[in-house]
């Protein structure tokens, strides 16, 4: 006798009921009963359709976490955080400070800021703030009695942090808009192979704070190959910024579009090695290295 799912579990193990009843979402948010969860996990073990959804959620979640990591400032003695709604908030902050215990928390409009009491007295305001960050610690703050001289210092910090947050939020909003909007004359550095490797011979790329992308083009030398293995890295840094294959365009250009955030000021090298001959003849294994400097 087979032990197939009972009728009430059929809806979590068959399509299109899975889609109609939002079973994937309910599974991912822990809203299935134990029996339903077991039945769905068993079904999805070899169901490509469900696995596509589940793995997409996994990547989505990971990408969100990656964004947070991207925005997270270096550990500082004070940190600030904002909810997503504060992204759009331009309202003047209404500051409500509550008291410290091990730490203190302040809510500024939709923004919550926590300050570590154990930090040295000369606590610096956050150098950089983050959006889309951790949940607001308001509840903990409400639970603690208001006291302590540190409250005044916290309130001052809160105002400073709120102003920083607003500025940061405005920049992020602007950047969000730039991702989709057409942009004329984007930052572009066109590189030609140079014999000298001295930093002073490197091309310079000016990046403004509001610039979302930068174009980097290397003019490949004849004889042209149809494909090049290229690597973009920051000189003196261990990690590679980007690595992949490029095909030359009609003007023999090998072009990479790089997020400006990834280009901190410094000296960079683009290394390209021919990997596929256009004519089928033997190709040179000589690597072309060009350098450019990113300046603010």
């Amino acid at each position: 006798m087979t032990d197939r799912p009972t009728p009430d579990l059929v809806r979590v193990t068959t399509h299109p009921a899975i889609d109609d009843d939002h079973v994937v979402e309910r599974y991912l948010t822990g809203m299935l009963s134990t029996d339903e969860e077991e039945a769905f996990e068993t079904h999805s073990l070899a169901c490509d359709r469900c696995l596509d959804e589940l793995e997409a959620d996994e990547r989505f979640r990971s990408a969100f976490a990656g964004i947070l990591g991207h925005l997270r400032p270096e550990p500082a003695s004070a940190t600030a955080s904002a909810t997503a709604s504060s992204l759009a908030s331009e309202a003047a902050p209404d500051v409500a400070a509550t008291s410290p215990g091990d730490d203190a928390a302040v809510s500024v409009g939709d923004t919550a800021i926590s300050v570590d009491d154990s930090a040295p007295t000369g606590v610096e305001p956050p150098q950089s703030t983050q959006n889309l960050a951790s949940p607001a610690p308001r509840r903990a703050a409400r639970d603690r009695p208001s006291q302590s001289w540190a409250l005044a210092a916290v309130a001052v910090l809160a105002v400073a942090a709120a102003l920083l947050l607003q500025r940061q939020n405005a920049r992020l909003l602007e950047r969000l808009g730039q991702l989709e909007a057409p942009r004329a004359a984007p930052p572009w550095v066109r590189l030609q192979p140079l014999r000298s490797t001295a930093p002073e011979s490197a091309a310079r790329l000016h990046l403004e704070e509001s610039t979302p992308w930068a174009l980097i083009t290397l003019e490949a030398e004849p004889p042209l190959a149809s494909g090049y293995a290229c690597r973009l890295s920051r000189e003196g840094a261990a990690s590679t910024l980007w690595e992949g294959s490029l095909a030359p365009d009609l003007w023999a250009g090998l072009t990479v579009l790089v997020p400006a955030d990834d280009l901190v000021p410094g000296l960079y090298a683009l290394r390209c090695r021919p990997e596929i001959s256009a004519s089928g003849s033997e190709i040179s294994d000589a690597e072309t290295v060009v350098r450019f400097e990113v300046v603010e």
Partner: protein
Amino acid sequence: MRSTSDPSRELTRIARRIVAGDSTAEAALAERSQRGLGYLLRRIVGDPALADDLVQETLRVALEALRADSVRDLDRVDAYLRGVARNLARNEMRRRRRHGLHEPLEDTAPLRDHTPDPLSRTLAAEDRRAVWRLLGDLRTERDREVLVRHYLHGDDASTVCAELGLRPSAFYVVLHRARKRFRALIERAEPAPAPRTVEDAS
């Protein structure tokens, strides 16, 4: 390989072939189940490398049991695989807690390179860009707040629904639409591992 047939029945057919001594079916079992086992185990243990090891261990245990014809109900071999995977994961987590371990016990365990390879880094960057674009595309602030609170803050469904005054079905629709849009964005970006070129940008 993608299959449109009933995945449970397909696994059962493969299992019966293994029991009957068809050794070629063993590779088919691995092919049909390791993706799902990998997802399930990553969800349980959180560590992709450990999940990979547990997938292999699950398949080893299952194949030995099938060869010995000791799986009680071949019609539910998918449930059997799930059970083995969950048990192995639970045992491993318990063992790690007991020993305060974050890495495998075995001295002979090969050193792993935890640095993401260039392709993974590029894909991860592409995924981040897709999320940015998606957040920018959302029609309402409420949808953005739902995603951020759920995916970033880790707020559960009931909390988000209660605080935003949403019905659960509306909450699920937001998640579903966002994931669909995200998939469309990353599928458009793949398989090219490179950042967008001039042609794409223009």
